[in-house]
């Protein structure tokens, strides 16, 4: 390992440490704000280190730099303005929207990588790749629906239509088959496209039958999903900090989801089955 690599790895390690400490400080109201600040510091360091890696490698063309600069600037500006302007009561739906963006980005990382394989990279890359596309796409559409329900664009009450369960099962089967195909290195781009579409549809059918009152728990669960998708993206492109931060969010998000469900005296299974016993069920 060259000195350069070592320094970058150490910055990534420092960032991961700040994420963990920051998240831990969020357990108490007194230290929470400092925790968020520490976490943001770690994030800034990790992103800057990544930019340095790109400069040092010299691999990026001018167009690539423009794409990164323009994309990041647009995303940062939109995110900043939305976060500053949102009303306090509308914050959960905005978090869900950001979560959708994160899940979409994670899925796109895997799809982009898949397009650039010249030879089959082996199951240790293809399995995380398939899982990244699957989880990322489910979170993307699921979080958009969740955000829409809270915003009132999508009706808040549980939406159950005839045959919904059958459609969900069929989609689950399609996702399973295409995931196995991708992992086995067969099916090519078609398998990835079908998996993406099935997962997008599955995200919709998963969240639609759930009542608006349960949305915060669902958003937290989808948040944990995105964390896992990001960790899978880390395996695909071989980047430690994505794996660490993604797994951290995946696990802590799962625990938080359970705490939130417990606070409402509901079980996660009960909520995900949806449409039953919620205060805002139809009729």
């Amino acid at each position, binding site marked *: 390992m060259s000195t350069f690599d070592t320094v970058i790895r150490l910055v990534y390690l420092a960032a991961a440490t700040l994420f963990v400490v920051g998240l831990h400080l969020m357990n108490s109201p007194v230290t929470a704000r400092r925790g968020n600040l520490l976490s943001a510091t770690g994030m800034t360091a990790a992103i800057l280190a990544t930019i340095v890696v790109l400069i040092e490698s010299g*691999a990026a063309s001018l167009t690539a730099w423009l794409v990164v600069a323009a994309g990041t600037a647009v995303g940062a500006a939109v995110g900043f303005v939305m976060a500053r302007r949102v009303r306090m009561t509308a914050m959960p739906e905005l978090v869900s929207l*950001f979560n959708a963006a994160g899940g979409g980005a994670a899925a796109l990382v895997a799809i982009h990588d898949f397009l650039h394989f010249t030879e089959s990279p082996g199951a240790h890359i293809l399995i995380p790749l398939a899982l990244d596309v699957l989880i990322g796409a489910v979170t993307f559409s699921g979080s958009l629906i969740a955000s829409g329900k809270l915003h009132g664009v999508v009706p808040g009450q549980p939406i159950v239509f005839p045959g919904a369960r059958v459609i969900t099962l069929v989609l689950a089967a399609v996702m399973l088959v295409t995931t196995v195909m991708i992992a086995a290195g067969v099916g090519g781009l078609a398998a990835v496209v079908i998996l993406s579409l099935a997962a997008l549809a599955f995200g919709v059918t998963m969240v639609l039958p759930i009542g608006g009152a349960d949305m915060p728990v669902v958003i937290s669960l989808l948040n944990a999903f995105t*964390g896992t998708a990001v960790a899978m993206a880390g395996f695909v492109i071989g980047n430690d900090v994505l794996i*660490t931060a993604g797994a951290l969010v995946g696990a802590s998000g799962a625990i938080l989801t359970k705490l939130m469900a417990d606070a409402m005296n509901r079980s996660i299974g009960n909520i995900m089955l949806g449409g039953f016993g919620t205060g805002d069920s139809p009729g």
Partner: protein
Amino acid sequence: MSSEFVTDLTIFVLSLLVGFEVISKVPTTLHTPLMSAANSIHGIVLAGTILIAATASDLVGYVIAFVACVFAAMNVVGGYVVTDRMLEMFKPPAARKVRQAAANGSAEVTR
């Protein structure tokens, strides 16, 4: 299976265990801010989208990389800003009063 993959897997499993342990007894009022904080942390995917942009070489690649960068940057910047705004509500009462007074003052001036 390469040793690099095994190292990555080790990191993954240990990070999962840390994630399970780092959240303890959280007061109910902090549930949403904590969710928002975790949401900003997975914005680290921006590092990934920056790295893939470097390997893009055709139009499709550039478009995917651009959209991915927009999404990831939105997640990370918006996530941290909105979390901070939520946590502003937990300020000690004295500090909040001063802020409110200042806000009211400026509101009157603009009026």
